[in-house]
């Protein structure tokens, strides 16, 4: 891909013609780009566009079929993870790689020297960390235990850790996925300081607004290829979205629907763990509405979803369906109560990878007379239902007898949708229903949820993607440390206000933390 060279200095990183194939799939197709010193380069693309594969090649975890990686003018040997590190490339992963039971200092030094060695000079390490943190304004306390840190702080520790190893190039993978809007802004300020100090940064994202806010230059990946390259100042969100998706994207059309009766009600529900505990959560779900739950990842949304799905039971408070309190709450009870459930994790919770598509779509109803009689399965009925779902939801797959593991995330999600929405459930739990899907599949899933709302179903939409919640939900509540805010109508609060609530403003939890 030809493009004008960045004139100022020689590139610190140059990828030339990187191609990587997995069987019939070409994950990276002749990707070339350069990173100039002192710039923030955003690598924008949907899930499956090839960002992760590219980074794995850069770090020597995969070997490219074709192409080379050069750092500071020298070619990196393929397949050697240490080469990238010694060349001064540092990575901050989406899921942090910190040892919770060690101090910040030990975590930062971990891997550079043996921690238990008497020659490990902690004071020297501490001075070094102090230098780094004061130079770049990264506030971390070296003595604190990592387990006591908030997510934003942990991310700063990861960055300091990379700088401690003399990283000159910093790569951040989806750095804002776990941050509040305010924390994200602070991160971008940090990145500015780093580049002002001579470092170069690549950050990987699929969120357009962040790319606009935090980068100098954008490389857009689509289908494993470079779909375009723009200076951030010369482009806008619409153009980037078009490049990323390959076509024009329209927001979902939300028609007004009359609100129906209360179908599900939570009254002061607390749970007893495991995971983040719910603390006195109350919520009413009406027919014909979508209630969105916003919040930073890990504030109890997973527990709330588990509760509604029947995977967790209230330890106090009550859960009522159609005004009737439910006792003996279980996944089967939830199914019997007519709740269609879309789980957060397609692979670990939603499907059984080594079973067939037919078996997976019948998984929640295999005992019904429709699919089995006196203990014997009706294979034909299961396959018939699978074929119906495959047809209705336009699932791309070899057939109902294929193992579901072979399908892409989007097709898997369509099958889960077909299973969950079969029989028009009155209540629908959609937990991160569009995470990891390409934009076409996202639109499809959102349309189905809106269609369910239009026929009078109550939809509980839990999403870490605030844009999605704002686009779909009639009412929104914010989850923070296991507590749920009063729901408010869409448009009642600004994004900034919601962001502040996600960070704990106006909740008792914040008072405790302060």
């Amino acid at each position, binding site marked *: 891909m030809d493009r004008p060279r960045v004139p100022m200095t020689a590139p610190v990183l140059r990828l030339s013609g990187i191609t990587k194939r*997995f*069987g*019939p*799939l070409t994950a990276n197709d002749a990707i070339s780009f350069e990173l100039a010193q002192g710039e923030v380069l955003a690598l924008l693309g949907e899930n499956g566009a090839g960002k992760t594969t590219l980074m794995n090649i850069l770090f020597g975890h*995969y*070997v490219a079929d074709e192409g080379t990686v050069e750092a500071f003018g020298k070619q990196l040997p*393929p*397949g050697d993870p240490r080469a990238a590190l010694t060349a001064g490339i540092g990575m901050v992963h989406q899921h942090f790689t910190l040892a919770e039971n060690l101090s910040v200092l030990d975590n930062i030094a971990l891997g550079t020297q043996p921690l238990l060695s008497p020659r490990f000079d902690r004071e020297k390490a501490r001075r070094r960390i102090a230098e780094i943190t004061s130079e770049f304004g990264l506030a971390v306390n070296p003595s604190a235990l990592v387990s006591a840190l908030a997510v934003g702080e942990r991310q700063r520790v990861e960055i300091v850790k990379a700088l401690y190893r003399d990283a000159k190039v910093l790569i951040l993978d989806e750095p804002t996925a776990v941050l509040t809007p305010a924390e994200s802004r602070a991160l971008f300020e940090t990145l500015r300081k780093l580049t002002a100090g001579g470092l170069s940064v690549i950050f990987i994202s699929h969120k357009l607004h962040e790319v606009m806010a935090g980068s100098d230059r954008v490389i857009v990946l689509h289908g494993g290829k470079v779909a375009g390259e723009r200076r951030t100042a010369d482009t806008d969100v619409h153009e980037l979205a078009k490049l990323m998706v390959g076509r024009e994207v329209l927001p979902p059309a939300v028609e007004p629907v009359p609100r129906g009766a209360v179908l599900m009600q939570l009254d002061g529900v607390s749970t007893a763990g495991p995971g983040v505990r719910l603390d006195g959560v109350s919520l009413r779900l009406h027919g014909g509405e979508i209630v969105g739950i916003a919040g930073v990842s890990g504030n109890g949304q997973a527990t709330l979803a588990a509760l509604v*799905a*029947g*995977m967790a039971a209230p330890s106090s408070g009550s859960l009522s369906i159609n005004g009737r309190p439910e006792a003996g709450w*279980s*996944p*089967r009870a*939830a*199914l019997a109560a007519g709740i269609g*459930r879309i*789980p957060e994790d397609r692979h*670990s*919770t*939603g*499907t*059984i*990878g*080594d*079973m067939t598509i037919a*078996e997976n779509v019948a*998984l*929640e109803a*295999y*005992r019904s007379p429709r699919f*089995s009689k006196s*203990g*014997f*399965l009706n*294979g034909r009925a299961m396959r018939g239902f699978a074929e119906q779902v495959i047809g209705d939801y336009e699932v791309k797959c070899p057939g109902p007898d294929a193992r579901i593991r*072979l399908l892409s995330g989007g097709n898997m999600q369509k099958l889960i949708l077909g299973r969950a929405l079969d029989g028009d459930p009155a209540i629908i739990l959609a937990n991160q229903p569009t995470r990891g899907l390409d934009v076409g599949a996202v639109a499809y899933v959102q349309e189905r949820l809106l269609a369910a709302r239009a026929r009078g179903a109550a939809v509980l939409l839990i999403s870490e993607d605030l844009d999605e919640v704002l686009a779909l939900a009639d009412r929104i509540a914010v989850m923070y440390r296991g507590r749920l805010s009063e729901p408010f109508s869409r448009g009642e609060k600004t994004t900034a206000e919601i962001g502040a609530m996600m960070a704990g403003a106006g909740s008792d939890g914040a008072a405790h933390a302060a």
Partner: protein
Amino acid sequence: MRLEPVVSPSALASILYPAGAILVTVVIASLLVLVAGASPFTVFGLVLKGAAGSQFALMETLTRATPLIFTGLAVAVAFRARLWNIGAEAQLYAGAIITVVLGTGALPLPAVVLLPLMIAAAILAGAMLLAGPAVLKIRFGVDEVVTTLLINFIMVLFVSMLLEGVLKDPMGLGWPQSQKLIADARLPRIVTGRRLHYGFVLAILSAVVVWIVMKKTTLGFEMRAVGHNPEAARFAGIPVNRVLMKTALFSGGLAALAGFSEVAGLKGNLTLDLSPGYGYSGIVVAMLALLNPLGVVVSAIFVAGIFVGADAMSRAAGVPSYIADVMVALALLTMVVAIMLTRYRVRWR
């Protein structure tokens, strides 16, 4: 060297690699035979002849395969639901004890009534023996690998105690062995004068039943779901713990049938050497069969053939019959590698 997952394994690979596994097994075993100072061709010829070279040899192989089919099925059923039953040996002895208790004259009934009763009792005994570890696993998270394995040792000592005590044959000249079963408690031979007995037919029937259960019933569906992904199974409303319990009862019962069939079909009484590790070999049999119930029959006959053939070979060629253990172990190892290679691609550097 690193491994990369293969998106969809090709059909050719899934035939080629297992075939290669058998080839590698034979090559390595040949080297050992050479070390022992014999010609591999002669030795493998003798093994083949000893395992399947005559009607007698074939029947011996099938006789030896019978308990392996039962224990192999027991392991296949349990492992399919990811219940790691390492205790088929103990469950086998539980079945054998019940067979002796009921079959030595305590119940003077005709064979048509007595045999089904003994079968039911043996199944119950094996099921109960695995129920304990299953309850411990479900209630307290105790690792069933440890409990089922340790029960094997307890059981062997328990049998020893019985054979020196209450079950000791007063006419046995002091040997630790039980009384002989009464005639109505014996499984008939399939061919007069040969050792092959109707236990083999029972084993084949069991394999078919297990196949039907796993493939066609809601119970089998639940067991597979729980085994492949317990989290997703629970989410879908499958009562995971209850399924594990049923699996334990099913698996224990199958293993106990091995004990019943060996005592009632072959030995006629209970001794301490009833099983030369059939319970453990059942794990190998089940793994080689990739936990497929019908495959268990094939792999049990394969493993039994190697053992029977190696016995005959060692008498003729003077190579120790331990080569059979080596071959079975090699076959398992190479097969595991072969299965992995169909799913992953090896990248050098």
